[in-house]
């Protein structure tokens, strides 16, 4: 039987973490509890963050949007600030897991689990999200792409907690596009996903674009070269075709039970064609 701590104040949390160097921390538990079920030996000590109210909710000032790490996916979907400015995130959240998972799972949890298939991650990468990491005596900031190191690996020391996610409001993008390819339409781990922020000029040229792919590498992948390459290109099959080949060369998918690397590579490129629906 594991001990479970449920601190309600940060000071309480820091104390628990100090006293229990092996403690395993979780928020909604939608990833951790599933993994623990299949393990014969359970960790001695679990720390559930769900009572730390300071880490919940969405706020904004003139420049930034702040999302508490313990905000659930459902709360984000319901939030007017996110609905107004972060469509890309809501598109992804709608396809994350299932209603019960969205009710329990949190944004912080999705980030710290660091699955290359995590549905919120590709949007956060192209939103240039900054993460605030708190500990007893300090707070630091890190861009999401340097915080996530690999599958299940993040730059988080014992005694540190991912406390919130910060997203700049500018620049504005007209197109917020997210497509998840899973083996079914709910409760599916993505096989490939692509998140896009884009502006298209009145003469159908891509004027600004950010792209990120999930499930085709150890982390979410974003390629500056492709984004630069696409700026100024017409939003047509011809205009995208070379970029599709570039994507297919750059992604680093693996074979697993869900799909072959070959399929993932093929589809990662082809998903770009879906952007044609935004042509003017």
């Amino acid at each position, binding site marked *: 039987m594991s001990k479970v701590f449920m601190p309600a104040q940060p000071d309480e949390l820091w104390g628990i973490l100090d006293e229990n160097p092996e403690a395993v921390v979780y928020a909604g538990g939608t990833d951790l509890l*599933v993994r623990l079920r*299949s393990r*014969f030996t359970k960790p001695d000590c679990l720390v559930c963050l769900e009572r730390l109210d300071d880490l919940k909710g969405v706020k904004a000032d003139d420049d930034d949007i702040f999302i508490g790490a313990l905000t659930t996916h459902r709360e984000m979907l319901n939030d007017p600030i996110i609905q107004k400015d972060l469509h890309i995130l809501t598109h992804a959240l709608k396809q994350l897991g*299932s209603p019960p998972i969205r009710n329990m799972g949190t944004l912080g949890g999705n980030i710290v689990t660091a699955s290359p298939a995590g549905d919120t991650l590709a949007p956060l990468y192209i939103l240039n999200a900054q993460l605030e990491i708190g500990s007893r005596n300090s707070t630091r900031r890190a861009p999401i792409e340097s915080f996530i190191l690999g599958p299940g690996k993040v730059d988080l020391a014992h005694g540190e907690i991912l406390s919130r996610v910060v997203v700049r409001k500018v620049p504005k993008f007209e197109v917020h596009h997210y497509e998840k*390819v899973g*083996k*079914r*339409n*709910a*409760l*599916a*781990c993505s096989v*490939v996903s692509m998140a896009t922020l884009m502006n298209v000029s009145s003469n159908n040229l891509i004027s600004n674009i950010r792209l990120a792919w999930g499930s085709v590498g150890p982390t979410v992948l974003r390629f500056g070269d492709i984004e630069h390459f696409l700026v100024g290109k017409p939003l047509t*099959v011809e205009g*995208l*075709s070379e970029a*599709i*080949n570039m994507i297919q060369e750059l992604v680093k998918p693996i074979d697993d*039970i*869900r*799909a*072959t690397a070959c*399929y993932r590579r*093929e*589809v990662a*490129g*082809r*998903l770009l*064609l*879906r952007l*044609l*629906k935004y042509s003017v």
Partner: protein
Amino acid sequence: MKSTQINIGSTLCRPDALLKVSGTAKFAVDYYGQDYIWAGVKRASIPHGTLKNVDCSKALKVPGVLTVLTHKDIHGTNRQGVVKKDQPVLVDDKIRHCGDAVALVLAETKSALAEGLVAVRTDTKELQPVKDVMSALKPGSPLVHENNAKGNILLAGEIAVGKSLAALKECDVVVEARFETQRQEHAYLETENGWARLDDKGRIEIVCSTQTPFRDRIEVAEALGMDPENIRIIVPNVGGAFGGKDGITVQSLLALAAQHSNGRPVKMWWDREESFLASAKRHPCMMAYRLGAKLDGTLHFLDVDIILDTGPYDHLGGVVLALAMEHSGGPYRIPNGLIRGRCVYTNNPVGGAFRGFGVTQVTSAIERAMDLLAEKMGMDRLELRLKNALKAGDRNFVGKTLTTSTGIIECLETLSRHKLWKQKSSWKCGVPPFKRRGIGISATMHASGYGPVVPDYANAKLELTTRGSFRIYCGVVDMGQGNTTANIQIVGSLLNQPIEKMEVVLPDTDKTLPSGSASASRCTYTFGNALISGAKIMQERLCQKAADLMMIKDSNEFSMIPGAIRHLPTNREIRLETIARIMDSSEKTVTAYFRAPVATDSVTDDKNLRLHGIPHNLFSYSANLAYVEVDEITGKVAVADYLTVSDCGNVMNPQIYEQQIQGGVCQGLGLALYEDFETLDGRIITKDFSTYLAPTSMDIPDIQSVALGIHEPTGPFGAKGIGEISTNGPLPTIANAIFDATGYMFDKSPITPEAILDALNINLSG
């Protein structure tokens, strides 16, 4: 105002529905009892090997572990099975699949049980696994059962039809194709579980989730060397089965545990992973088809070769093979051909009963072959089907003359008039960018009952209670399909009593009467017919009693009305509870027997094939249609609409009828597009629901069901079996729709996005 009157043909909401959604209905998992203990199974975890020794010493030292039992503790045959008893309760010689049970641990708590199971050590010598049917059939293959006379073949059969292979050269057009269907898991909500107790008279009571209480009792008794009279099986509400509980799961293990628990109740409850590992699955099937026709589209010849992977045990593999062979030609007149079938042992998971029961596999083959033929002949696929569809009096492919209602032509004609068929071209024209649209159809038939040899019977029992209500003793399990509601409708409508006057006793070998399995689309047909007789006897008896009491000569002047019996000429009434009080308890109980009519056609001399069920006598039919949209970018298939037009006889309860269609279609769509219980060298890859993907509500289209309601003269109120047929349509219908959309006929299921993208190989950006 809601009427509580019960009618046949109108929807009666299942009386158990509210109890189930509110959590008050009792399932086997809800049984605990005073001072109960846990029992759990040590599984082999290797696909093939010799079991040299089971070392229980460490497990016995685990605090809370009470005892560890092995085959040495079994004093019966230690063999279970329906036709061929080849499956051990606990392995005594060889391990034949990863889910084989090698030891049984009894413990005070669940956690002690888990620790005890890990501590049981098995000393095994691994043998080369027989990993698939092709290697099993190769000369020199390792044998799954060394003493089986036919090597790795459990059952093989051959039926020549008409001029057999000689008719091939008489065909103007021939299509040839091979098809392969996958292993499918039932994935019922309620995993296998039960509860057992030995009483001080040496009798064991088992409460469990099963489709077959009466057969279980005999199997458990034989395997453990007990008198069947000393075993009582009770089946409360069941949380799904689909064939997966048509056969022993926990029963013998629980009885064995109860023999060694000093009278304490024993509980066993497989978790999802154990259920996946140990339970039977839909047989993977390989099918080679050659279908030939005359120039005008008249079918002339079919050559079929079917190979089923039954895993290491018969379970019901032989019977599944026979039903597959019988249905291999679909609902068509095909005068000549050859049917060959083999059911093959391997070290894969056990193949067993699964809604559709072999028909699902062969229907997917004949229906895809029909589309290939139509394409090759340039003929309309619906026209080709209509031209060859069976009529009453025709012989089906296996040679059985159709003597019961045969509505496949009406099904197809109704489909042809449906708006989804009529609007198909305009729907296809509206295709968005990077999509392809296609429409598929299929025609299916499905037998009900056990075939010509094994008696398909039921014994209904009905009692008038002292409260004046009627208690129906249901001999056939309702695992969610709704036959208990049908039973209530039968009695309620015949005796003219409202729902408040109805009670049911769920299957219990001490209380209800032997009535066969809840399987083979037979429940309402066979038990319903028995119950009709029972209700009629009850009515006559009660009217006679009323006549006697009123000293009126002619009991025909009496009629039953809600709560009473009325003498119509005088309007005098007598309450049912009044009658009940003056009746002796044996008088208040009625029993009635029904045995389903069987085919007398001699379609094969092979006694073994007859024993395994060829041919049947009664068939349901359906025509199906699907709209699909294939995505060129990802290869994903979206099913936009699905229609089933069915002839399953008169409709007793429209809602339950439709639920059966919807559920079966969902499982069929799972088979077509999603589900694949994968193994590698006998080891399971898809161990849980995170990798074994069944469709969700987000993947299921609107499903329309049109019931023709053709009266079947032998059926209860004209009904036929509805339980399975809807599972057979989706795979061929979807495959044919994808064929229509892409020009590519997929021969392997599930049809994955990856396979579609591979086949299309479109250069979208070039």
